[in-house]
């Protein structure tokens, strides 16, 4: 059955048989083209659901693998033996290094940048081998206690699966390119059990722009993967969030302080990674075998010396921090140690994510700041758990620089909307300060260290764009009326220096007439004719002052003079732009940069 609308032509008895056959062919081609596009779109949407399902299954397996490896390597007891605490991450670090150096060289790091690069550089191509490597190496590393999280690897596993599936199905290059973020959203949503945050993060960090074309697919895949994950592992949020409430507006100040402290911690964290990562990578190749093992050794040592909480993803300890189980001094120590441990793990090239460590540092820091504030201001009613919860969002906003995701992440994780105001305040403070102190976001920094320059939504968001009003000149002194005769116009313009005049057409629209045309018409004795009768039917294009200046580029070769009009009254002239105005403005901007 065809879903293409019938293209009807008016009955015409005079058409020839040749014309009829030509028309039929054109209609048929139109139907086929429409149907092909439509079916591809529909197929892409259905495929997004399958990608979500497969990514969800893969992430469930990934979680199972991490749990297995944790039990096998660290034991099931609450207090493992020192040999396990130090030995497991060291030995596994060595194994992972061999795998990364010889078998899976592209699985280093978190996976967010690789996915982004696939979208922008490699036409959506991510080798399936990457998914396998990321799965194996990350599961081993996280299970052995390396201070990394499972979310970013899940994102890359999802993207790799989607890419492999797209290639297998021989999708068009355009669709193939879009599949990577679709899979990424699915992987992240399943890992985090938070579909909204996953969609937002992929848009903020991977796609880098809001695109209606892909949003539906991303949402579908994220939701289907979360459904699969919940089917197997339950619908509970990652954390059991204690009862939280925002009681008094004055408490916002306390949260703002948390935002400030979080921003500083995020800057230290990002700078540590940004400083050590390139330096360790230029070390001789043989050291690459030892770096993850050394990182594992030091992390194990930290664990053995009394802070095993910093090992692994650390979700259970975030949970404990939210339930007031640690003193604020210990929380502060844990935050600092986690920054050190994660920096060690990450810069050593061990595959694994930064989401969980970021949340860990945020929760501990939030709890510590809350503890200090409550110590000095006992009237504050907020619990330490609430500060820990807000702290997670703060670090997310300041370190990963995904402000929208950070807000929704806290809401999704807590299921408590009464805390939205403190979260927004703290996250905004953290984001603004972090951005001022560390202009390049961590993911962009890592990409640049890898020799790639990928678009960033943050840069686009903060970029100062030129607008039409920046190049616009005030309106010409004289605006002619379309009902005026050429003779009247000639008299009015006789003493003016302009070579071209704008004409306000009736009932709407704008046109222009050159002095040259006017003089020629007058010589031909057409002075009695009105402007409306001699000007071309086609009107001049017009612009609004707030449009990006790029919009003017489309018209500057069509007309010498482009009117800029008021949005409320299209007959009111705000100014004019010419080709020279636009180019001059761009040149001036380039010189300023």
């Amino acid at each position: 059955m065809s879903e293409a609308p019938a293209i009807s032509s008016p009955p015409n008895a005079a058409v020839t048989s040749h014309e009829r056959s030509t028309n039929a062919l054109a209609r048929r081609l139109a139907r086929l083209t429409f149907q092909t596009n439509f079916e591809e779109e529909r197929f892409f949407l259905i495929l997004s659901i399958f990608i979500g399902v497969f990514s969800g299954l893969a992430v469930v397996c990934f979680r199972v693998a991490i749990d297995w490896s944790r039990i096998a390597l660290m034991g099931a007891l609450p207090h493992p033996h020192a040999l396990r605490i130090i030995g497991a991450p060291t030995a596994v670090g060595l194994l992972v290094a061999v795998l990364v150096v010889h078998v899976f060289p592209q699985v280093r790091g978190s996976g967010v940048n690789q996915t982004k690069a696939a979208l922008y550089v490699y036409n959506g191509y991510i080798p399936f081998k990457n998914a396998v490597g990321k799965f194996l190496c990350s599961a081993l590393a996280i299970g052995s206690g390396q201070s990394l999280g499972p979310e970013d690897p899940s994102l890359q596993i999802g993207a790799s699966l989607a890419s492999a599936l797209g290639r297998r199905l021989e999708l068009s290059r355009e669709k193939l390119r879009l599949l990577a973020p679709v899979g990424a959203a699915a992987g992240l949503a399943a890992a985090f059990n938070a579909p909204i945050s996953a969609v937002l993060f992929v848009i903020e960090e991977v796609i880098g722009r809001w695109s209606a074309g892909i949003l539906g697919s991303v949402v579908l895949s994220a939701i289907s993967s979360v459904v699969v994950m919940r089917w197997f592992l339950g619908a509970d949020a990652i954390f059991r969030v204690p009862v939280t409430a925002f009681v008094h507006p004055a408490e916002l100040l306390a949260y703002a302080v948390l935002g400030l402290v979080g921003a500083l911690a995020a800057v230290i964290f990002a700078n540590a990674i940004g400083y050590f990562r390139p330096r360790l990578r230029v070390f001789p190749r043989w050291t690459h075998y030892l770096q993850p093992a050394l990182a594992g050794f030091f992390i194990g040592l930290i664990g053995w010396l009394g802070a095993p909480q910093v090992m692994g993803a650390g979700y259970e300890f975030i949970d404990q921090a939210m339930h007031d189980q640690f003193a604020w001094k210990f929380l502060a120590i844990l935050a600092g140690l986690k920054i050190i441990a994660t920096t060690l793990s990450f810069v050593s090239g061990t595959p694994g994510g930064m989401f969980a460590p970021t949340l860990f540092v945020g929760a501990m820091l939030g709890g510590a700041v809350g503890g200090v504030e409550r110590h000095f201001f006992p009237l504050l009613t907020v619990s330490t758990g609430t500060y820990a919860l807000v702290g997670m969002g703060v670090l997310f906003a300041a370190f990963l620089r995904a402000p929208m995701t950070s807000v929704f992440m806290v809401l999704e994780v807590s299921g408590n909307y009464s805390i939205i105001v403190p979260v927004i305040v703290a996250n905004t403070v953290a984001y603004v300060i972090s951005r001022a102190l560390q202009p390049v976001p961590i993911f962009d920094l890592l990409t640049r260290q890898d020799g790639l320059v990928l678009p960033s939504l943050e840069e686009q968001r903060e970029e100062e764009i030129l607008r039409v009003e920046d190049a616009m000149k005030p309106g010409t002194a004289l605006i002619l009326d379309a009902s005026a005769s050429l003779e009247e116009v000639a008299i009015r313009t006789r003493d003016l220096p302009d070579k071209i005049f704008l004409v306000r057409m009736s009932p709407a629209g704008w046109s222009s007439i050159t002095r040259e045309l006017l003089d020629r018409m007058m010589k031909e004795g057409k002075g009695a004719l009105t402007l409306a009768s001699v000007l071309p039917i086609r009107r001049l294009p017009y612009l609004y002052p707030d449009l990006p200046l790029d919009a003017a580029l489309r018209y500057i070769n069509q007309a010498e003079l482009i009117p800029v009009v008021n949005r409320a009254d299209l007959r009111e002239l705000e100014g004019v732009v010419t080709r020279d105005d636009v180019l001059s403005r761009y040149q001036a901007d380039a010189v300023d940069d």
Partner: protein
Amino acid sequence: MDSPAPTAQARRTPLVLAALTIIAILGFAGVSRLVTRLKANEKRIAFHAFEAGLAEFQAGHPERALDDFRAALSYDRDNPQYQLSLARALRDTGRLDESEAYLLHLWEGSPQDSTINLALARLAVRRHSVEDAIRHYHNAIYGVWSSEPDKNRRQSRIELIDFLLQGKGFPQAQAELIALTQVLPPDPAQQLAVADRFRQAQDLPDALARYQAVLKLDRKNASAFAGAGDVAFQLGRYRTAENDLRKAIELNPSDAESRRQLETASLVLATDPFLRRISDAERDRRIVSVFNQAGNRLKACARAIHVDLPSTASPGKATNANPMPSAGNDLPSLWTRWQAARPKLRKLSSPANADLPDVLMDLILQIEQQAAQQCGPPGGVDLALLLISRDREAVDE
């Protein structure tokens, strides 16, 4: 009308979707098997940790049990039994906020669960939060118990009553006790426990009724006789008290408190001139006797605290004066009044002095009260007189 020619992709689409569906189904089956195995393994580990924690907890080491319970929960985080155990251990180690967080989380999941409500109530008791404790105890009483609901409900209510008694919330405790009596089985031990709590809640009539109910079930219950005797004594029902206390001593000769009370009750009965069913002569005899006893008590008390009493009263004054002059109630004044009243004893049997017994008894009781105030609690007949005075005041009120 022309039908569109299907493209190669369009022809392939159903096959692709079918293949993807089959792969997804196979994937579900495989992952399901994997997850089932993992969960079974984790549940096994969790159970071992829980058992270890429970052993520590029952051995009185809640601090050590914490780690095990936490480990159990890390492998089986939704297990309410583990959560509840952890919450209890946290409560017993004084981490009340954390315990509350766990319990509230559990409570949100099943607000009707009486076990959780009981744990929350105990937490509220630790916090001295009366309202929360009452609310959660009531939730526990009226909620759902997985086993032995009647017994657990009774036990929860008894806990609530004890909490209220501790905080001197006697009216609330009395209300809870009355509710408890409706569901009490005919078990002497339980009835006796409730009677004791009625007595603690100062609901003496109900306490007496409950002790009597116990005695109907068990005629040889010494504690019930002692309790009933004590309550009857406090109620001023000395005859009943005497009977019950005597039986209590017969059944439990080592019950010194009952013996002491019995002596006092017997003295009250032997001394009280207002006792019904005694003759006028006996009444007069008792008044004379207790009048002299009061005088002796007054003298002894004054001597003990080194207060000089006036040597003699003026005979003329004594004859005409009111034996209850408006003088103060200090020992010398009382002694003066006592001496002034002494000659009146002879007129006790005269019908013209019908109110004289009351007047004399008032003076006697004032002397006993004042002496008790200044020289400490009396014993023997003086104590009996003091009790008689208390009962008379209660009647006047």
